């Protein structure tokens, strides 16, 4: 444990209360566990990681403290390379978002998910097409018609990052509708939502958690969700409408489905006992009421997968990203 001694030391102070509770698996962490976030502080992955850290601390689910470390450089490449190069270190796990696929494809960083050990899929994040509530579009068709009528490129779609999930969805929407947007990349999803409220962009594909506050404030309007079926949450959120009331884009004639992985990987060459320990840990996290509240607040798809199912899902998804990014012209050409 030579890395981040200071962070760990401070975190140990904050995790003094984390003690006791024997784990059921045979292997247990012997040192503080580093939880790498390949994205900046305050973003979706970071929020999830810190929620998990909080739940583990509060419920004493692990004897050793867990330390969240952001390694966001190079669209997350810094974090992935770090875990990849920690072969055989079972005290390092990483939470992934779609940059697991998009970063190596777009930048040519020498990394593939196959370099890591898959642990578990925690949830899938939904994407929703949002417009400003002051605009007269109430359905996908209204909006697409306007985009079609406007000169190519005058309608602005804002999103998080470049050549990542938001832009992939934008390109797919363009293909599906025969339109052309100007895509404007921002640093974070919350910023995108506010730019949309301020009418600096015309639409966004924010995750629910990034835009829910503005929806409840009556500033934004959801048009459709990029999933095969509407979301599962039927509690009213804004104007008496629930997440469930947002139609799927497919049912609105916009044939595009996209869900983002929120999953856990660990360092290469982890043993089965070590993987089982973390699977068991995350199962316990999922059973807490805090986790359920978090899932509800972000309208997450709570699919949980481990082992071969998970690896297979990731493999299929990687191929799909390869196709999507190739079609969009986002692949790294080797400079």
């Amino acid at each position, binding site marked *: 444990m030579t*890395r*981040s001694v*200071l*962070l760990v030391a401070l*975190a140990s*102070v*904050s*995790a003094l209360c984390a003690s006791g509770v024997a784990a059921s698996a045979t292997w247990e962490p012997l040192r503080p566990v580093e939880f790498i976030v390949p994205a900046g*502080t*305050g973003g979706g992955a*970071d*929020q999830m990681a*810190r*929620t998990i*850290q*909080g739940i583990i601390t*509060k419920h004493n689910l692990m004897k050793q403290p867990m*330390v969240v*470390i952001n*390694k*966001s*450089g*190079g*669209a997350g*490449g*810094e974090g992935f*390379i770090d875990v990849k190069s920690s072969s055989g270190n079972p005290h390092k796990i990483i939470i992934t978002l779609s940059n697991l696929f998009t970063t190596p494809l*777009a*930048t*040519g*960083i020498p990394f593939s998910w196959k370099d890591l050990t898959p642990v578990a899929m925690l949830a899938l994040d939904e994407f929703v097409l949002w417009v400003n509530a002051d605009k007269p579009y109430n359905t996908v068709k209204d909006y697409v018609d306007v985009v079609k009528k406007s000169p190519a490129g*005058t309608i*602005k779609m804002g999103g998080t*990052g*470049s*050549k*990542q999930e938001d832009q992939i969805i934008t390109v797919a929407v363009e293909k599906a509708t025969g339109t052309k947007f*100007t*895509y*404007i*990349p921002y*640093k974070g999803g*919350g*910023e995108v939502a*506010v*730019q949309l*409220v*301020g009418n*600096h962009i015309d639409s966004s594909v924010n995750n629910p*958690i990034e835009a*829910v*506050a*503005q929806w*409840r*404030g009556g500033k934004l309007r959801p048009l459709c969700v990029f999933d095969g079926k509407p979301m599962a949450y039927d509690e009213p959120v804004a104007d008496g409408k629930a997440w469930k009331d947002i139609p799927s884009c497919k049912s609105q004639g916009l044939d595009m489905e996209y869900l983002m992985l929120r999953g856990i990987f660990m360092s290469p060459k982890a043993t089965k006992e070590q993987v089982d320990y973390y699977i068991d840990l995350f199962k316990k996290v999922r059973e807490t009421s*805090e986790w359920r509240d*978090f899932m509800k*607040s972000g309208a997450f798809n709570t699919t949980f997968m481990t082992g071969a199912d998970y690896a297979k899902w990731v493999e299929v998804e990687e191929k799909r990203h390869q196709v999507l990014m190739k079609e969009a012209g*986002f692949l*790294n050409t080797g400079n």
Partner: protein
Amino acid sequence: MEELVNLFHGFAVALQPFNIMVMLVGIVLGVVIGVLPGLGGANGVAILLPLTFSMPPTSAIIMLSCIYWGALFGGAITSILFNIPGEPWSVATTFDGYPMAQQGKAGEALTAAFTSSFVGALFAVIMITLVAPLVANFALQFGPAEKFAVYFLAFCSFVGLSKEPPFKTIAAMMMGFALAAVGLDSITGQLRLTFGFTELLNGFDFLIAVIGLFGIGEILLTMEEGLNFRGGNAKINLRVVLQTWKTLPTYWMTSLRSCVIGCWMGITPAGATPASFMSYGITKRVAKNGHNFGNGEIEGVIAPETAAHAAGTAALLPMLSLGVPGSPTAAVLLGGLLIWGLQPGPMLFVEQKEFVWGLIASMYLGNLVGLVVVLTCVPIFAAILRVPFSIIAPLILVLCAIGAYSVHSSTFDVMLMLIFGVLGYLLKKCNYPLAPLVLAIVLGDKAEEAFRQSLLGSQGSLGVFFSNGLVSTIMVFGLIALFWSAVQQGYTRLRAAVA
């Protein structure tokens, strides 16, 4: 009036004994975090976030925001004593704070810094109390073009600030821009200038550069000058605090101006760093002793500190009412809010009155507690300067190395810090100003991003920077600031040539 009733209710919440204890603990932790360079407010709050999960949300946010205040206060300490800014917005404080410490006036500088911080924060909190909903909507008018205009103004108001020839200032600034360009280009998603080094994926971190340029560079210079660390005659009693307080009211105009600049920059998403630089630059130009800035003028400490704190506090407003963090630390606090099940945004003020007003009340109390804590420590801090240089220098080096390491937990950064140290030494020897270089590293990539976002939106037309009243006004101010100094210098030279 409803706001006032809510506020008093908030005070009742914040004044519960448990909350006051939490406040004290938070401030002390925050000062420690602020003093360690590298371990800034954002990291500190993130690390201590889990500690608060078992508390009620209001106590938790009070503790975290107090860590934030503490870190803001603490950042000034190392800036003044060792020329090492702990946070980006403390850079401008070093310009006059460090010379003051060298002249044996560390106590005065620290007192001025702490008191101005308090004044700035207080002004911002009062503003939040009175006009929160109104002001929040102002932030919505800031698209990429407006943001770029603010950065442009910050750069322009800085070019004329330097006593060096403008071309040296511009050269240093360009070097900063080049360094800021390293890493991932957020507009195209391509890597730039990394030459295959994975360590450079994240670009050059501002903190590493600053710790090296200022901290290490300064040690090298002092060594050359014969191991003579000036400032040994610092007064170390509490009377210094009172004496300084007596002089402070004479600078009320500077304080007020800095408060306004700070609040404005905090609400717009530009943040505390441009606020402190801009306030320093403008004060230098309009203050009576402006020509002497950089040689240890107390106003040169008051201006940036007031503005930085006003901005840092005002930045919490867009976070609470819009869900957009105005600073990295605010971003971590935002994550905390979500974990406690509070959804920041327009509805927070309506649905979570007790929480919001408890937080606002704790801003008043937290800053007051913070001021008392740090002021009582002024003699102790000032006494550090009496330690002989041969003892203090290795300690500073170790502190710098720990700071650089803890930014990304990487030993590569420590090497980088040393390289920046040598660079800082060489630049100083050649009379290149360091401040524009640092400003460009901090704001360069943000300015570039905003510039390119604007052009994407306008399909390449530069007219977007003059497309509405708000952005045009800021741009025109920027241009005036830029050419004013050029014309002034040209005029002086012309006169010299004629004579």
